[in-house]
């Protein structure tokens, strides 16, 4: 086992504990926004999609890269925007907006 893999495993294990610890005090009412927020964070796969797309030259790689970038961007952009839309509503009463007509 090389050093880099060892480092990666360390990060992996520590991140498990941090991930559990950091949300253990979340009130029930924020579960949906939180799920949506974590959903946006795994959009980090866009970094991976860009890495594999960057050097693409064969048709297969180009196709895979393109689809991966589209899917990952949808995940990250949609995830953050929809989370923001939910949380926007928690800001309270002091700024009454004009009610949307539906």
């Amino acid at each position, binding site marked *: 086992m090389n050093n880099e893999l060892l480092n990666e495993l360390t990060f992996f294990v520590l991140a498990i504990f941090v*991930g559990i610890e950091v949300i253990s005090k*979340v*009130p029930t009412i924020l579960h949906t*926004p939180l799920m949506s927020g974590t959903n946006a964070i795994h959009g980090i796969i866009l970094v991976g999609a860009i890495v594999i797309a960057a050097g693409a030259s064969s048709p297969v790689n180009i196709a895979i890269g393109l689809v*991966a970038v589209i899917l990952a*961007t*949808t995940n990250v952009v949609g995830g953050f925007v929809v989370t923001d839309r939910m949380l926007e509503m928690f800001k309270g009463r002091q700024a009454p907006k004009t009610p949307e007509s539906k």
Partner: protein
Amino acid sequence: MTIAIALAYLVAAVLFILGLKQLSSPKGARNGNFTAAAGMVIALLATLPLLHFTTAGVTIILIGVAIGGVVGVVGARRVKMTAIPQMVALFNGVGGGAAALVAVAELLRFGEHPTFTVAFPSVFSIVIGSVSFAGSMVAFAKLQELMTGTPITYPGQQLVNGLLAAAIVGFVIAVLAVASVPFSFVSLMVLALVLGVAFVLPIGGADMPVVISLLNAFTGLAVAASGFTLNNFALIVAGTLVGASGSLLTKMMSDAMGRSLVSVLFGAFGKVQAGAAAVAGQEGRSVRSASAEDLGTLLAYSRRVIIVPGYGLAVAQAQHAVRELADVLEKRGVEVSYAIHPVAGRMPGHMNVLLAEANVPYEQLKEMDEINDEFKNADVVLIVGANDVVNPAARTSPGSPIFGMPILNADQAKNIVFMKRSMRPGFAGIDNELMFDPKTMMFFGDAKESLTKLVSAVKAA
């Protein structure tokens, strides 16, 4: 990896953790989302200098980001608040698909003989990512009502799913031990996609939030696995954070429903027996229904009213109407509060989001533990489009599929007003004794129209 990039990834990881932390309080939550988004931007920008772009690479990245960006923004902006759960499912699914594709591309790059430390996480990511993608799409279709929300079961289903899983394990071993011919990845992906579909089909609409949460955690793990393949710390840390917190969130959700995760995933909710019981239960029994005028008077001269909102309210887009009713009641000096069951709506917290959209004051929203002792002091409990969360069967009949689920003590109020479209049973598909309670009055109709009628009736009283 150069030091600068490593440091940037470290900053991004810290921002993700801080963001999750901030998301845990209503005040800081919105900032938490921005914090996490900032972490994402830093991680993305830090990655770019590392890469050697081909012309084709630059082109597909630009096109892909443009398409994905437009789809993401438009989808997230246009979606109705009631459709949030399926939107989360959709965004989660595409993330899982992306993780699987990244792993495929990486394995192809390594060619014939990838080392075990590359092949193992790649194969893991392909399987889990594909299951998450296909499963999320089925969850989306069920919640969007593109297909039936009831569990789809057939004899020997567990066996078929078990065989599918076994076939995947067999393929994984073949891929790892034998050779990385492209054909085997394709078969693996197809099998995993089929398993994803087969896995979610037998799960009913009511349990879908738990499944989405679980698949969210799956995608996190698939992303982390892709990170191991690419030796990318940002992917490993962020993916693992999501995998771990998503797993805990999944457990919290199924706990709130009073069901073990195993029974959610493999129980198929005994729909046949429950359906039969519902029919038998309704025979020869009558319910009391009331007019808007009667109810308006009752409400107007109450001191304490507790509103129990449920998914029916969300479907009818009645959150503004319910606020209006609460406003006219408060003007007359009636004390109004909302009792929010942990799984009201279709996800924990979903109902709070909807009511917040209608500017319902945050302080009036009471969680179950906080309000359950107050029902006995309430003059009227107004149940708007909720059903299973007030079903006394959860306390009294051990045979019921929802037995053991914590419920709101609506039956202890002096008067119970049940607003429903029809006598149809709720998501769990079982009969509700509360409707036949002598204290209960039924008020049938679309939640929004009914509430509007009540508002004028209260004004007139």
